[in-house]
């Protein structure tokens, strides 16, 4: 009878020889008991990461609650921030944060795209690599360095060569006069935006470059094969190819700018209230917290500062989450 073709039930173990017996005496694997523990440790570490983000949100919510419940909606709409009278409204800082970040982005994005496109599409190989490496290295420079540079080098130059002439030459009563009004010391919303844009520039250029390099060469070749100029290849083939990823990069840059503390705190002038010109001093959520937190006098002041932190978290989390979703769907 052919044992192999009988039904499942009819299975008979084959005769066992001595070798089989020695195998059964094989000692147990050493250290196997640690397997589930190790997996559990790894899982715990991953969970700890999750818990830390959760803890962050919860602690900000708890810490900010007294101020939020005390001021209600007016916390978000009022531009008054006065530690002396203990009245706090976040609108000025929120506006400062959004304005500096978006201006910084508007300044940095075209330049970052220019750099990335130049390095990937047009630059001779031999110098493209060193430049790319330099750009990536600069992306790692701590923001406090940018802040100091902004305060001591950039702000005086900016005041002397940009702010003063513009203010002097603005016709009285014109729109320009309103736009450029402010103390000509170089510490204002616009210089903060410029410093921010310089700070996020290498980062965005580096990520954009990597994104561009994911475009398969066939795509490029196909377009060139149709007689397109390099400009047309970039705008009509390459950009559409990485569109979602580019939006992701923009959001990442924005996320960085929104949460940046040091580079901004040095040069924004730290004035509360809604900024009324781009040359006015201002404050952002992060700079307000950095400047006042350790000196906060009352509990309500501390709580209001933490509430600012909560607002900042909600804004950046939304932006960063969108960025990651867009980037991951790009499979970059």
């Amino acid at each position, binding site marked *: 009878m*052919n*044992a*192999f*073709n009988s039904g*499942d*039930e*009819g*299975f*008979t*173990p*084959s*005769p*066992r*020889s001595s*070798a*089989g017996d020695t*195998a*059964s005496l*094989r*000692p*147990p*694997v*050493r*250290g*196997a008991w640690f397997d589930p523990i190790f997996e559990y440790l790894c899982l715990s570490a991953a969970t700890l990461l999750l818990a830390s983000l959760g803890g962050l949100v919860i602690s900000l919510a708890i810490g900010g609650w007294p101020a939020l419940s005390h001021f209600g909606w007016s916390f978000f709409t009022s531009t008054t921030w006065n530690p002396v009278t203990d009245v706090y409204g976040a609108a000025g800082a929120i506006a400062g944060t959004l304005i500096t970040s978006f201006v910084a982005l508007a300044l940095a994005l075209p330049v970052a795209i220019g750099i990335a496109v130049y390095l990937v599409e047009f630059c001779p190989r031999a110098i493209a690599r060193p430049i790319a490496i330099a750009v990536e290295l600069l992306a790692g420079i701590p923001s406090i360095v940018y802040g100091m540079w902004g305060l001591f080098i950039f702000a005086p130059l900016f005041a002397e060569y940009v702010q003063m002439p513009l203010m002097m030459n603005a016709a009285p009563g014109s729109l320009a006069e309103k736009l450029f009004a402010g103390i000509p010391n170089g510490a204002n919303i616009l210089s903060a935006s410029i410093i921010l844009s310089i700070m996020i520039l290498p980062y965005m250029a580096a990520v954009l470059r990597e994104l561009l390099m994911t475009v398969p060469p066939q795509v490029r070749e196909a377009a060139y094969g149709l007689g397109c100029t390099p400009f047309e290849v970039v705008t009509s083939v390459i950009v559409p190819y990485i569109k979602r990823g580019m939006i992701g990069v923009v959001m990442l840059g924005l996320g960085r700018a929104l949460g940046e503390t040091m580079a901004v705190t040095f040069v924004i002038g730290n004035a509360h209230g809604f900024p009324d010109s781009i040359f006015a001093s201002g404050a952002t959520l992060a700079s307000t917290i950095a400047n006042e937190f350790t000196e906060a006098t009352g509990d309500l002041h501390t709580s209001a500062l933490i509430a600012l932190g909560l607002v900042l978290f909600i804004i950046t989390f939304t932006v960063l989450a969108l960025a990651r979703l867009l980037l991951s769907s790009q499979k970059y």
Partner: protein
Amino acid sequence: MIDLADTATPAAAIMNEPPYDELVLEARNVDFFYGKNQALFGVDLPVRRNAITALIGPSGCGKSTLLRVLNRIYALYPGQRAVGRVVLDGEDVLHEQRRLPWLRKRVSMVMETQTGADPIEEEQVLRVGTDLARLRARVGMVFQKPTPFPMSIYDNIAFGVRIYHRKSKAEMDEIVETALRRAALWDEVKDKLHSPGLGLSGGQQQRLCVARGIAVEPEVLLLDEPASALDPISTAKLEETLVELKKDFTVVIVTHNLQQAARIADYTGFMFLGRMIEFGPTNDLFLQPKSDKTRDYVTGRFG
């Protein structure tokens, strides 16, 4: 073209004198699934002790898959699933039932009364238990590309042994030397045992992997196209090694090289589209194939 008419109803494999009385390992009616994709359809494979069994067949026919079932390496990947029986020394290794040994005992006792097997022997089998790690130590594996661990030649071999035994330095030295000698690598590396395994040539790395595999004294050694990345001289050395190893071990080898199968294998199975088409002594399979497909393949008409 090949006639696929019989794919709907799996035809039983043609079995030429399979060595049923000297088996160490047997796959029976194995189906395998990569998620929803079925890669094996009711495959049988008898593996004779102290022999070389070769698996041949066109690319994608499921040879690697079958090997990966035999030591359950597939279990690393969620979603991969095998159905059927794999019996190692009379013990079903595909269905781990460690959690409920008493239940398993009941079930098999019932089965025994039906099949009339010796209950005492089954009792012994049960005592062994099937532990995945131990199964893999009993059924070793060498892969297509050499996979030396990122450590010295010596440690590459000692690594596996240390998992099971605490050995003194002298004992370990001896084990390492024996393994390297058996794999025909000793003379080439005896002076640089403590240099990295990754520094060896491809062929040497592959023999190092064989040495590493046999150092833990497996009963069966599975090799998946071990020579495909090797030059002819290294291949010849590896083949010699395998024939030498046959004395102490059982070898199952997947190969695309029909001459290689003909040279070293005692038994050969021909697989096609996830099925075992024909199995038998190597000479019979190559010289008097019973299936048309086998004949077409071994005479080089396709594949």
